[in-house]
């Protein structure tokens, strides 16, 4: 299993200009922020279950950019239907990357369904997402980092991470500010 902060650092070490990120509330928002704040990051502080769909909306509106949704197993489980919706849409520029530690870190580390019987990669495959991948080690992480620079079809990746809880890195919680700076970064009219 991989340590989450090392994993996110590897994934984003050579982040291309055209890669925008939507992070799921809780730990993955802290993970993405830990690599360095960036106007191209849209951090969710709520809307649990909505990360993949926010990513889909961005991906459809910005076909010339790649969109990575980086979220957790609990957040994914709350919006499982979104995997079906994304699969049917087949956005070529959307990657869903799930940091799966099998628990709800924000609420006291209670077990999630992925520690039980649920295999999210198989769910994504069954929904019809064309390219799915499991990452368990450094070699897999390196391959995923490369894929985030050049993927050309909908991607679902489960990254098996250790259940540790590193110190929190808290980006701004001002939703309006996050929205405006993201839109500005991708060239939308602001104001």
């Amino acid at each position: 299993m991989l340590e989450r902060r090392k994993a996110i650092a590897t994934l984003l070490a050579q982040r291309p200009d055209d890669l925008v990120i939507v992070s799921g509330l809780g730990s993955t928002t802290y993970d993405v922020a830990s690599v360095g704040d960036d106007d191209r990051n849209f951090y969710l502080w709520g809307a649990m279950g909505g990360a993949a769909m926010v990513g889909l909306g961005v991906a459809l509106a910005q076909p010339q950019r790649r969109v990575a949704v980086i979220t957790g197993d609990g957040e994914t489980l709350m919006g499982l239907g979104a995997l079906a919706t994304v699969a049917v849409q087949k956005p070529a520029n959307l990657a869903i990357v799930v940091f799966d530690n099998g628990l709800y870190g924000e609420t006291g580390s209670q077990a999630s369904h992925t520690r039980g019987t649920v295999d999210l990669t198989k769910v994504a495959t069954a929904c019809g997402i064309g390219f799915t991948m499991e990452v368990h080690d450094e070699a897999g992480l390196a391959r995923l980092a490369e894929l985030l620079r050049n993927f050309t079809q909908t991607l679902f990746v489960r990254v098996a991470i250790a259940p540790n809880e590193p110190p929190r890195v808290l980006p701004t919680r001002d939703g309006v500010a996050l929205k405006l700076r993201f839109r500005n970064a991708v060239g939308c009219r602001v104001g």
Partner: protein
Amino acid sequence: MNLTASEPAWPDQLFAVLKAADIRQVGYVPDAGHARLIERCAADPAIRHVVLTTEEEGVALAAGAWLGGQRSALLMQSSGVGNCINMLSLIKSCRFPLVLIVTMRGEGAEFNPWQVAMGSMVEPTLRLADVHCYRLDHAEDVADVAAGAIDVAFNGELAIALLLSQRLIGRKVWVK
């Protein structure tokens, strides 16, 4: 599931309003009252129509569309409003524009009593979530009110809902 013998004209007017407002993504859970509008959106190559498994997906989709610079609308039946409540906090917290077009059930002429519970809660819950409601009872009002409400949404980055009443839509035909 024919609602009336002849198709009413207001769904086509609503479609024209969406086009004039440059709506580029339309999310929906299939609904009989929206059948004609869905058909028009799906047939338009400039509109990406996104079928959802639940309406809250569409709220998040609308947020993403705006982040990426596109305008969207979300079609649903009144029962779907109940599925959206927590996701509406995303809209309010970030002040995203949102256009909901809701076909009402559980009002007059309702055969299915299970529709009444959520139908009666639609307007109060949307108002609590700061979604501005525009109720439409008459076909001749649809185009003007819809165009104005959609302007409110995108000019002010506010959330609006057009509530298409059961009186407007007509009685659902249960026995074929």
